[in-house]
């Protein structure tokens, strides 16, 4: 075992950190400029094999990118477009998928995978959305919920139930019958609720193999969950640093409040929560190539712990900041908001513990 970064990893982490910090400080940045920065640094191709036009990065490299993203409260659709939709496109065969992947790699198109539906909570496995064959190809009907970064120009990948099983369908922006309701998320990003009212798409828009798509999506989702864990680790790291700095500079009753033992121990507990989360995420990353049940149990355990740590670190950072923590203008609150959103993504602790227990628990999976 060895937890030190390789020389290449250190260079990647440095470059990404510099880019994200510069973007976070740039008052004039827009979504195009943001995405272009990702493209130029090679981040769009990072997780893909070289023969697909990528740079062959693995979950460890994604961890470095997402930690930096969390530290700087990134807003670009990297998780959705590259780590979810993009990696799914890379896994399924066929011309449609590889054309789509090219559009993603050259920065011209953005994608989003639409997992959740009304009233099925975090269980995306049996889509209520239906796809039926039509003369032209397929007709899709159903609703999708809370699709992060889905905007009017985003290409959607929609799971839908077909007679053959778990279908995956590429829907271009502006398809007739498609309506998006964009809503602000609590961390200042955009997510959409989507209605598919008899959306007509071409035969070729069906990608992958309905017998296998579910397993591929499960693997993609597990990877995305770990990306969220890494993002949360980055956000917690920065939020703890902000809090420690505040404790050292804010004076009350004639002393910096960081000299009060109760606040010192609270900060120590935040550190412990952060380091345990980091360790559990490292473990889950090491299990990404294990058989699906073991992989999923480790990932679910990592997300459950990350969620608990996020809630604790986030709320205690606000407590230690006092009133300042509640003001939107001060960064602590924005990190708390981001951690709250990350907690929610792909499932709360209860969901992930239930998944872990269904898989036989951590002890069995080793």
């Amino acid at each position: 075992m060895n937890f030190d970064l390789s020389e290449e990893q250190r260079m990647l982490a440095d470059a990404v950190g510099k880019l994200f910090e510069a973007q976070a400080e740039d008052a004039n940045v827009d979504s195009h400029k943001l995405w272009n920065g990702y493209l130029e640094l090679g981040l769009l191709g990072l997780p893909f094999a070289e023969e697909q036009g990528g740079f062959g990065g693995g979950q460890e490299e994604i961890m470095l990118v997402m930690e930096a993203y969390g530290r700087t409260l990134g807003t670009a659709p990297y998780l959705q477009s590259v780590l979810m939709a993009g990696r799914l496109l890379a896994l399924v065969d066929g011309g449609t998928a590889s054309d789509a992947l090219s559009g993603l790699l050259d920065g011209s198109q953005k994608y989003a995978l639409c997992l959740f539906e009304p009233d099925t909570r975090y269980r995306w496995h049996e889509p209520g959305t239906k796809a039926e064959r039509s003369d032209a190809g397929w007709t899709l009907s159903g609703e999708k919920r809370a699709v992060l970064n889905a905007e009017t120009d985003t290409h959607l990948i929609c799971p839908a139930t077909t007679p053959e099983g778990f279908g995956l369908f590429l829907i271009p922006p502006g398809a007739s019958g498609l309506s998006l309701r964009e809503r602000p998320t609590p961390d200042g990003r955009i997510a959409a609720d989507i209605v598919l009212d008899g959306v007509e798409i071409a035969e070729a828009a069906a990608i992958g193999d309905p017998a296998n798509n579910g397993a591929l999506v499960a693997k993609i989702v597990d990877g995305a969950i770990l990306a969220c864990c890494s993002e949360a680790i980055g956000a917690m790291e920065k939020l703890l640093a902000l809090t420690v700095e505040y404790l050292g500079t804010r004076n009350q009753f004639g002393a910096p409040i960081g000299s009060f033992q109760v606040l010192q121990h609270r900060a120590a507990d935040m550190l412990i929560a952060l380091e345990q989360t980091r360790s559990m995420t490292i473990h889950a990353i090491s299990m990404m190539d294990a058989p699906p049940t073991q992989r999923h149990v480790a990932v679910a355990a990592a997300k459950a712990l990350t969620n608990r740590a996020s809630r604790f670190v986030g709320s205690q950072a606000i407590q230690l900041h006092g009133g300042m923590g509640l003001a939107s203008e001060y960064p602590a609150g924005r990190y708390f908001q981001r951690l709250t959103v990350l907690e929610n993504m792909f499932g709360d602790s209860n969901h992930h513990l239930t998944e872990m227990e269904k898989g036989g628990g951590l002890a069995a999976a080793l």
Partner: protein
Amino acid sequence: MELTFTEGERRFRAEVREYLLSNISENIRQSVYEERPLPREWQVESQQILNRAGYAVPHWPVEWGGRDWSAVKRTILVQEIDQNSVPRPLPFNAALVGPVVAAFGTEEQKRRFLAPVANLDMWFCQGFSEPNAGSDLASLKTSAVREGAHYQVNGQKIWTTAAHKADWIFCLVRTAQCERKQQGISFLLIDLATPGITIRPIPTIDGFHHVNEVYFDDVRVPAENLVGEEGRGWDYAKYLLGQERTSLGNIGFSQRRLDRVRALAKARRGEAGPLIDDPDFRRRLSWAEIELKALEITQMRVVASAGNPAGGADPKTSILKIKGSEILQDAAELLLDTLGPEALTAGFADSLASDDSQGLDAHSSVLSAYFTSRKYSIFGGSNEIQRNILAKAVLGLGSKR
């Protein structure tokens, strides 16, 4: 011992509930239930309905609109107000400036302020906190210098709730530099229409606009607006701490929030079947129910001995503050967790929008409630300060930190 409510107390509760449900409009109550921001006119309408029945300021002296009800009855009243989603009487008026004016003000001040304050014809906000005086309130710096018949006020207040809706502000100001920082502080009433006052919103992480900074730049305040004696403002502020304790536990508010948690959890899906039947969710709810029921009795234990003329602040009130805030926060977490993935698109307010309800749907405010609930363990003496009080004043532990 009389561990249950008396017949008279039960009758009083029924009367209050009947009055509230018949007189406060459904749209106001629905808005409070959903924890959405309340338009100013609804707050005023509601308080005037309460005031008509003696429910707005029952703890005030009878000659100024109070009722001679026991602390237990007043606790029942505030619990019913909260639980039935009725807006509480504005605390700055009813619980803060009113009692101080009634106890320490001149007859002229009482005649001028008390009736409109009780009826919310005059809306007060509170100018205590300052940027560098949080929990250490007495280190405040806003100065009021006497110049003939006026005070010249300069300085800054912060975290001033609803200053943007208020007509007046009551302030602690420094009228003299003394050896002890608690000395030389005075209690001043200031008309917000006076030139030199600037109100700047502080957007908060719940997405709403509640609080403000208030700047005073050579503001001239008539000396007749000084309450009580110059230099005794700290005593008056401390006097308030020993006053109305009937609402400290936020019992009715937590009950209302848990009612909503139950309603949402019945209607929404959990890991399998309705969320309310999910073992983990149900268990967290059970603990919240237990802590809340226990706190309801703790609240009654505190107030039922408050009639005692020996009086003074019961240090057990710190338990009400601590547990009351923790239960509200637990209930807010449960509320958030009912939404599942849809929390992301429940919508989120823009605190600088002018519209009070900001076009939010019924679930939007769940997220706001979650974020804003962090404040209950911070403001009004943080939970850390409350635990210091318990350790020192109740348990008698050493005074070092």
